[in-house]
């Protein structure tokens, strides 16, 4: 102020006097006013009686203001006769007249402002929370009530179809198989495309450590301005899971359901009688009729697959602390015999305030055990191959065994082996929050994640596959990893008038170590011990025992600053510096910045005319750089020697010794993949009924990690893990929620998500490494297709581009008409994906459904490609439809077998009735839930939904047809509150 005035003095002498006058008058006024001051203190509550921290108290017409502390308390000195305005985003402001007789301690209760619901929604943003209304980045949130319900065996599935741009894929109906998540297209060729999972602030954990029943809310950080705070792990998006805390009082809850599943679809293969008819008609005298009548697909299945689940939890809490505990049990039988998932899980979380709420301790412990029996997927191909006249058992009650390639009795394979796997997951954390000097909060978070798996396999000496030839084969494996993290950060929050300032800075250190061992033996005299006494196996070979251990570290510094003015203009900037032990010596540290802005247009005066219908309109824009370092395993940058089964013979002693050989081309420049992303978003709310958002993004990923081919000579081995290529993903996402009817009796709401993404490989070469084409989508293992590929990765095309001959059908001889040149004949990337759901309730009845779909993706139906083979009959079975297909040509890969696999799946349909208790906090709901009741598709295979991620076999339907189950279950929820 002084400087400014003096500058003016130099330039404009005349004004000097008037300025002095003004200043004098200003101070005089202040003095006069000060004489009429009064100190008011008080507490601000919400309509439920909970204190509101961070509410603004402003003396009207002045800049004098303060905010409530963590207990909702405030103190302000105001002029007598003035008005104070108490406001809080999402609540209707209260105005209080201050007179000389006013009470100096007041209680203020703010009522919720239903017009801007998102304003009170708190969103986890990583190392803190923000009000949804203040967000500048693209973040989608979902609360526990909106998670997908049903027989969820992997936590990923609760997000299926719920978030625009998030694709959840479980490739099979095997309940023990996990799901993959992919947000906004993949950014990487080699590295994981799974988003970073953060549970209660602990980054990088296994999503399945938390059970759906323990989840309170999930926030999905989509764009780089939101995820850059997670630096080198943020490029695939971040999923922040917040678990349920405690409520005031005591509550008790039981959830249970039991269900029946059956395979939703089969391939129509010739029955034994159809086969006999064909043989008779075609006079195939050599054909062997084994006299049976077998549907091999059905023979693999359970007559009824049962699922049951029970969850009990209780919570108790008061002003100063609380705890919540839960235990749950799930047993989900797959439709294919032996497959199941059995899970026992528990969680315990507690918090405690001390020192007048200056310090809060927060601790959580999540643990579960999974048990399952891994399936040998080779049974499916055999179930299509085997002649339907072969009986499962012969006259002696033994499994029928007919020689032939891929012709072993699949029921025998399924039955004659023991595979028992187990996994333990554990996550524990202890968080200390200290609030001091009103505006500061320091957080120290210590966490431990431990994940251990054991595998047991025994193939007895009578088992056809790998049992007989080994005279019994037993194996045990063990693997575990432990991640320890220390995170410390400081938060500063300040409200100055209409300005909201938030700043955060912190440090984190992660130590991940993994180790394991395994042993296998063959040559058992008796099969009695199974895998429990490997020493009884008498054949010993190199590689029968092994062990391994590795470790990596990640050190990070990070900071974020937000500024919001009047909840109208918002700016956020973040920066993170990540150093990883996995990076090459020349690139140990990476920096990941971001910046974003938002403008709540409806906060402007000129928008008053539209207030009655446009209740919220907010424009956001952000840019950021994030990384992906998952594709770099440990020690990949170094020149190391290993003992990879490289033995050599010493004739002098007639013994074998191990050679130590260099294992890889070292790459000291190895580093993270970096993704630059621009995101523009629009949030809106119409008629107070429809809320939604539209996001547009453009992502460019550079330094793509891939094991690129390098020339030999001079390189030691044929590939090197290096950062070379570039790819882009551009897309549009729309989310819409509508509360169509909302009154005392009827509640009707729907939600719709839509996402479209376009991917393109921009570059695969640089000055050092040249790559023209990478072949993918291997057909290896299919008859006559050794070392053949169905897809290419090439500049100008998206990942998963089918490359082959275009087929225009069949000629008069039943031969495929094929183009001369190979071209792009399809793509596994969907044009768009949608999710659609509805909830409806009338009095105590409720009804709802969820569905999701994916449109425009191509799938290679390699199952049909191989089964529609005129050489198969009579020995090998064929689909019914083959007989009328007119195909008289050996299996050939071409566009003929590429199908549009668009589908819409009716994922869940539920009908429930709630029995109210006299005590309003208690209730009992009983419901029926149907899962996967219908799939709308033109796809000819068993299921159009195949894995679209990864490089090895995206978009391939290839004898891995574990049909997804259709499940109907009956359940009840009991909530008791005291």
């Amino acid at each position, binding site marked *: 102020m002084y400087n400014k005035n003096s500058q003016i003095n130099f330039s404009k002498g005349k004004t000097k006097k008037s300025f002095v006058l003004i200043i004098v008058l200003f101070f005089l006024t202040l003095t006069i006013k000060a004489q009429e001051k009064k100190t008011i203190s008080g507490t601000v509550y919400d309509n439920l009686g909970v204190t509101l921290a961070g509410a603004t108290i402003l003396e009207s017409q002045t800049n004098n203001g303060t905010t409530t502390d963590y207990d909702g308390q405030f103190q302000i000195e105001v002029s007598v006769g003035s008005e104070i305005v108490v406001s809080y985003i999402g609540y209707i402001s209260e105005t209080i007249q201050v007179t000389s007789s006013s009470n100096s301690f007041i209680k203020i209760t703010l009522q919720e402002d239903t017009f801007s619901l998102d304003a009170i929604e708190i969103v986890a943003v990583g190392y803190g929370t923000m009000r949804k209304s203040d967000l500048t980045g693209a973040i989608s949130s979902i609360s526990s009530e909106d998670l997908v319900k049903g027989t969820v065996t992997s936590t990923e599935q609760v997000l299926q179809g719920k978030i625009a741009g998030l694709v959840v894929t479980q490739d099979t109906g095997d309940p023990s198989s996990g799901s993959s998540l992919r947000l906004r297209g993949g950014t990487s060729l080699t590295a994981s495309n799974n988003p970073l999972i953060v549970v209660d602030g602990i980054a990088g954990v296994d999503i399945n450590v938390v059970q759906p029943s323990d989840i309170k809310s999930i926030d999905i950080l989509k764009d780089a301005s939101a995820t850059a705070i997670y630096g080198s792990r943020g490029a695939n998006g971040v999923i922040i899971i917040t678990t349920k805390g405690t409520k005031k009082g005591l509550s008790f809850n039981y959830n249970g359901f039991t269900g029946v599943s059956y395979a939703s679809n089969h391939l129509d293969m010739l029955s034994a009688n159809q086969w006999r008819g064909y043989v008779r008609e075609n006079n195939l005298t050599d054909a062997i009729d084994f006299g049976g009548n077998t549907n091999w697909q059905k023979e693999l299945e359970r007559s009824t697959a049962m699922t049951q689940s029970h969850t009990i939890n209780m919570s108790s809490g008061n002003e100063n602390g609380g705890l919540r505990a839960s235990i749950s049990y799930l047993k989900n039988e797959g439709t294919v015999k032996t497959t199941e998932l059995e899970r026992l899980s528990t969680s315990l979380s507690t918090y405690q305030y001390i020192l007048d709420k200056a310090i809060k301790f927060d601790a959580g412990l999540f643990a579960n055990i999974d048990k399952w029996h891994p399936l040998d997927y080779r049974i499916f191909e055999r179930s299509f191959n085997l002649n339907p006249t072969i009986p499962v058992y012969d006259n002696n009650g033994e499994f029928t065994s007919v020689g032939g390639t891929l012709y072993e009795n699949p029921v025998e394979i399924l039955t004659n082996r023991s595979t028992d796997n187990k996994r333990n997951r554990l996550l524990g954390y202890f968080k200390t929050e*200290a609030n001091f000097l009103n505006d500061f909060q320091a957080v120290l978070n210590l966490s431990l994640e431990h994940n251990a798996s054991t595998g047991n396999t025994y193939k007895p000496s009578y088992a056809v596959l790998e049992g007989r030839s080994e005279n019994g084969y037993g194996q045990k494996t063990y693997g575990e990893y432990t991640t320890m993290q220390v995170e410390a950060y400081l938060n500063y929050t300040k409200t100055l008038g209409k300005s909201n300032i938030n700043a955060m800075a912190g440090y984190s250190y992660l130590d991940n170590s993994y180790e394991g061992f395994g042993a296998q033996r063959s040559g058992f005299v008796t099969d009695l011990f199974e895998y429990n006494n490997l020493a009884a196996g008498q054949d010993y070979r190199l590689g029968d025992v092994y062990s391994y251990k590795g470790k990596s570290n990640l050190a990070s510094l990070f900071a974020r600053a937000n500024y919001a003015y009047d909840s109208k203009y918002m700016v956020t900037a973040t920066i993170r510096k990540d150093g990883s032990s996995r990076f090459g010596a020349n690139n140990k540290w990476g920096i990941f910045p971001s910046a974003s802005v938002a403008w709540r247009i409806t906060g402007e005066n000129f928008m008053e005319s539209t207030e009655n219908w446009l209740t919220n309109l907010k424009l956001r824009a952000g840019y950021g750089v994030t990384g992906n370092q998952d594709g770099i395993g440990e*020690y990949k940058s*170094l020149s190391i020697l290993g003992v990879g089964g490289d033995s050599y013979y010493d004739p002098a002693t007639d013994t074998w010794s191990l*050679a130590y*050989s260099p294992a890889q081309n070292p790459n000291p420049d190895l580093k993270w993949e970096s993704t630059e992303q621009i995101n523009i978003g629009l949030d809106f709310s119409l008629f107070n009924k429809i809320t939604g958002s539209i996001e547009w993004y453009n992502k460019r990923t550079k330094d793509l990690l891939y094991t690129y081919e390098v020339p030999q000579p001079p390189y030691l081995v044929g*590939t090197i893990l290096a950062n070379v290529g570039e790819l882009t993903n551009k897309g549009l996402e729309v989310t819409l929620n509508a509360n169509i009817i909302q009154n005392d009796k009827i509640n009707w709401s729907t939600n719709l998500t839509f996402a479209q993404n376009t991917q393109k490989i921009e570059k695969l070469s640089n000055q050092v490494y040249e790559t023209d084409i990478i072949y993918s989508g291997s057909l290896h293992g299919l008859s006559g297709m*050794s070392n*053949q590929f169905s897809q290419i990765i090439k500049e100008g095309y998206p990942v998963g581009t089918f490359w082959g001959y275009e087929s225009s059908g069949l000629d008069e001889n039943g031969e495929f008409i094929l183009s001369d040149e190979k071209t792009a004949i399809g793509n596994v990337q969907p044009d768009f994906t949608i999710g659609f759901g509805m909830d409806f309730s009338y009095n105590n009845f409720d009804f709802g459904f969820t569905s999701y779909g994916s449109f425009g993706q191509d799938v290679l139906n390699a199952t049909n490609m191989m089964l529609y083979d005129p050489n198969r009959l009579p020995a090998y079975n064929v689909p019914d439809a083959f007989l009328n297909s007119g195909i008289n040509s050996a299996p050939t890969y071409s566009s003929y077998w590429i199908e549009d696999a668009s589908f819409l799946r009716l994922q869940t349909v539920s009908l429930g009735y709630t029995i109210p208790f006299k005590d309003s906090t208690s209730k009992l709901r009983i419901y029926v839930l149907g899962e996967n009741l219908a799939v709308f598709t033109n796809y000819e295979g068993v299921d159009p939904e195949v894995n679209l991620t990864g490089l090895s076999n995206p978009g391939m339907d290839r004898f891995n047809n574990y049909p997804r189950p259709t499940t109907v279950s009956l359940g009840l929820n009991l909530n008791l509150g005291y």
Partner: protein
Amino acid sequence: MKIKNITLIVFTALSVFACTNLDEELFDRVKDENFGKTPKEIEALAGGAYSSLRGFSDAISNAYPASEYVFFLNEVVSDEATIPTRGTDWYDGGQYQNAQRHTWTADNGMILSAWRYCYAGIAKINSIIYQIDKSGLSEEDKKPIFSELKSVRAYYYYMLLDLFGNVPIVTDFEDLGLPENSSRQDVYNFVESELLEALPYLPSNIAYSKFTKNVAYSLLARLYLNSEAFIGTPRWQDCIDMCQNISGYTLEPDYFANFATQNEKSTETILAIPYDSDAGTVGNYMSSMSYHYLQKFAVSPTGDYQWSANGMCAQPGVYSSFDDLDRRKSALLEGDQINLATGSVIIMDSGQPLTYTEDISNFEDAKQNEGVRLNKYEINAGDQWERDNDFVLIRYAEVLMMQAECYVRLNSPDLSRPFLDQINERAGMETPDIIDLEYIDKELLREFIFEGHRRTDNIRFGTFFQPWWEKGTTEAYRAIFPIPTSVLNTNTNLNQNSGYPN
């Protein structure tokens, strides 16, 4: 307030002492700079040169000298073997059809496998030399180790010389510059000089599977035998001279003892790649690449034999070129295959009997039982997928045949008779009255059938360029293979061999 301040101090302190060490800690492997210090460690490094001879498989290709695809390549372009397409089976993008018809292109996966087999071995040996060079061993102690390593390397370069001709010569592990082609003459000179330089330091004893003086002499003899084919300069006498340096070996009375499961006992083998499935060796499953899927029931009544892929077989005409009295004829399997459980002929899925025939009715769509099979290496019920028999590279019989051939070529066929008599006596045959090149050519086929020699022999005798079953005349430039496309794409300093499109 005090406590709050203390908390603040604790946090600050934590951040100060916090760790930022990002060096990688190794547990189950070792950085190259920390290895190769003790004699045992040096031995373990040098051993890698020998283990490299078994080849490898990775995401790009299989490169096994005893099976896929290095062995396949040498066999199916020659006049002794073929891999017909049976239905869809063994079509595999047409790579075997192209090889049979001598219409291969630089994209053929088998050619890439052979190239990578050699250069992976060379790079590995270069790295071992580099590693041992740093070990602090005295120059004197290094000499014999390096000589042995360089001899193995020369073996790889010999193969490159034979297969590709104009290949880059790379000897420095640290140099990652993209190399240029050397001329075939330079590669020839390099192989010769490396072997000659190493010779004085190589062990002179008979050490099975090791690169001894005898091995170096044999390789030089092979080099001189093919000198005319490689560089246009015949060196028949040099070949004979080299052969005469070789000592300590005799023919095994039983031809098949060389191919028994325990064939390391053979007195005839000069160089072999040892295999032992218990020791974890991989890549030796040629038998399974040839027999029919159901052959297992002819080996064991319970079918306790490995899966077989029904691939490679002999070209029509090969089986009948053996006299019925020739003991070596049973290196090929013809006729009915008896199911040991039932005593009757095995019935294939098609309902037809499994009877191997010499004739192959349709190369592009052969019947499952057509073509006689490789039956040279011993097989037994209960064999593991990874077989235990050692893969024979050089037998003493070859030394005899080389001398016999050279004397014929030097117009002294009578001098070749003593060598041929030894071979024939063991085979149960008699050396004919007239010994000419055509006889030598046929005798080489019979003696070394399915030992990977035939392509080189066909080229040396010129038959390679003449039409044979399912093949027309062959252009002269196809005497060497093209440099694989993916190698040319990643190393723009390389030129394609002449005759092949760039």
